[in-house]
């Protein structure tokens, strides 16, 4: 009799976990609350640093899940879990030999950072909005005109005590660089400014990409967090910041302000954690058993983590971690 492992979440992490489990001869079941698989990768345009279309990765994963005959429950929300069972919102209860939690993260709601006027001022968008625009093939200001000056703001909803987001979301820096380059490709005449506090280029090829953005694309990097955004009479956005490297306030109006929103822990992490006796980090993300030898394990035997449920991660890292989580879960189930 095959062992059965429940994978909560059908995003990149969940799909990869399930694939790996199937490969190991275990029977996985994916529980996804959305009507389709894909998670946050849906709606993303291209992935850093290679500009690989997100659709490519997503399609491959979905096809393989399909081909492997993995059982997938969609539109199924998990409300409680134990090492050997998962309770769904509709009252159903699934049983297995262990559980992998791959519920990912929630995108930060930029309107909470009121000073930037997201949702209030036209032409203030988020990085996710911009990806959607790229996908739709229509990148323009609210009035349909092409932007001539674009500002990107790093760390929106990251490293910010005011919105209870102390952590660094890790991937926004490189996303900001990537999107700035994409904008510059679309609008070569536009001036692009990236406002940052630190540029955290942690991955392979990222720093090189940053340098290319500076030298080849002439993207301006200004070290300073934007203090506030305000509307101008001609429908643009006035931003204020300090150019900290010169120690002087800086202001300018831009046609488009893109907020590079960070990753937030899912709100229901708290409930799931409480029900199952799982530890959470102060950031709200799930806390692995330990950060070195047990980073895909939870503090409860039989419950494992894959992907951004424990901390912000890139797609590549998530895929690796999913494989590791699957192996750990399978080993547990077999024992």
């Amino acid at each position, binding site marked *: 009799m095959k062992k059965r492992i429940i994978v909560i979440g059908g995003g990149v992490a969940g799909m990869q976990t399930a694939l790996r489990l199937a490969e190991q001869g275990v029977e996985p079941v994916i529980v996804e609350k959305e009507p389709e698989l894909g998670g946050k990768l849906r709606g993303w345009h291209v992935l850093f640093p290679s500009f690989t279309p997100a659709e490519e990765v997503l399609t491959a994963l979905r096809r393989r899940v399909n081909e492997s005959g993995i059982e997938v429950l969609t539109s199924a929300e998990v409300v409680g879990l134990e090492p050997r069972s998962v309770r769904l919102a509709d009252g159903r209860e699934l049983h297995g030999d262990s559980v992998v939690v791959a519920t990912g993260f929630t995108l930060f709601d930029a309107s909470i950072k009121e000073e930037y006027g997201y949702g*209030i001022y036209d032409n203030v968008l988020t990085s996710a909005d911009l990806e959607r625009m790229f996908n739709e093939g229509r990148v323009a200001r609210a009035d349909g005109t092409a932007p001539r000056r674009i500002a990107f703001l790093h760390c929106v909803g990251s490293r910010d005590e005011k919105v209870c987001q102390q952590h660094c979301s890790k991937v926004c820096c490189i996303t900001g660089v990537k999107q700035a380059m994409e904008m510059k490709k679309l609008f070569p005449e536009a001036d692009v400014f990236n406002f940052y506090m630190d540029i955290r280029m942690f991955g392979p090829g990222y720093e090189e990409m940053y340098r290319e953005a500076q030298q080849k694309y002439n993207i301006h990097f200004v070290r300073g967090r934007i203090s506030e955004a305000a509307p101008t*009479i001609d429908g643009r956005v*006035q931003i204020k910041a300090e150019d900290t490297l010169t120690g002087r306030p800086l202001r300018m109006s831009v046609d488009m302000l893109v907020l590079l929103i960070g990753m937030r822990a899912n709100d229901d992490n708290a409930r799931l954690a409480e029900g199952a006796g799982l530890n959470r980090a102060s950031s709200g993300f799930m806390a692995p058993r330990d950060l070195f030898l047990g980073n895909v394990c939870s503090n409860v035997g039989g419950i494992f983590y894959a992907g951004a449920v424990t901390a912000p991660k890139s797609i590549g890292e998530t895929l690796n971690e999913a494989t590791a989580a699957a192996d750990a879960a399978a080993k547990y189930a077999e024992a």
Partner: protein
Amino acid sequence: MMKRRSWQEYQKEIADDRYYYARSCIRQNFFPGSEKAFIDILQNDLGKELLDDPKHSSCTGIGYHSDIVPLETIMTVVARQFSLMNEAGYENFVTSCITSFGIYCEVLSTWNEFPETEEKTRENLLKATGREFRKPASLAHTSDVMFHFRDQIAARAKHRLVNAVTGEPLKVVEHIGCHYAKIFPKSGIGGSEFPYVLAGMIESWGGEVVDYPERRHCCGFGFRNYLVQANRGYSIANSHKKLESMAPYKPDFIVANCPGCAMFLDKWQYTIAEMEGTTYGQNGHGIPVLTYEEMAGLVLGYDPWALGLQMHQVDVEPLLDKMGIEYDPAAKYLGRNGKYIGKPASAVVNCCPTDTIYDIRE
């Protein structure tokens, strides 16, 4: 209409009745009519109970923010105010001044955060005055109270903030005193980024709020930066910056909930006009600046001169005309009982040549 819905997330308890009223140094100096109007509106129009206690004093906030009054001292002064309120049997503290409002918020918060400071304050107060105190049940700025009753006032409105001729809503620039919500965003209606306290009144009474790039910028008072003459370049420059930023929107008037801001936005228009010849209003004069009490008073049909609008440097008559308010131009600069006491000299910023009006009475 601004898409500012977020104000609803910042709500605070505002008492419905029985207020202990603390006056403002600046407001009673420059807008004594506004304080009178506030009391009148509450007591006469809305039938509320309010105590104007002769024993209360300044909170000494201007001294505190000029850094000559220590934190311990101002805490004790604040404690004395609370003690007076307790003594009078009230528990809803309302203050007319934004600096004071900030001070009360800060002191309460400090006592909360650092309980040893509250102990020390009690000790000091007892030692100095033999008094004890209880903290108020609620603390509000008087503009909060006015906001609280904005719909009742709208129901009694004699005039609305619309152009009486065209029926178009008046374009209003609202200016919120920095210490209203920037120190404690949760203590202000609408928070610090999109405060709704004035916008709510304006919208209830038919006006349209103008959002402009420097909306959140300080008026430039900056305490020592105005109080010491050598520093006033800073003070005027900040108002200048705001005025330059709002002028393209052609606002019909400015309203402020902070007495200092209202005074500065008014007086600096005069100074800028004298220095550079620049005026920001239409037809070459200034933009009228009102306090929210004056705005409410006009809406309720109070006589402009009874509200003290003659004490403004920038003439308010164009606004009164737009709103269709009837007034006696000749009565503007009269003393008590219609006594003729002379008139101010005309200035660049003024639109109404005072000569033609007053010489009749002379």
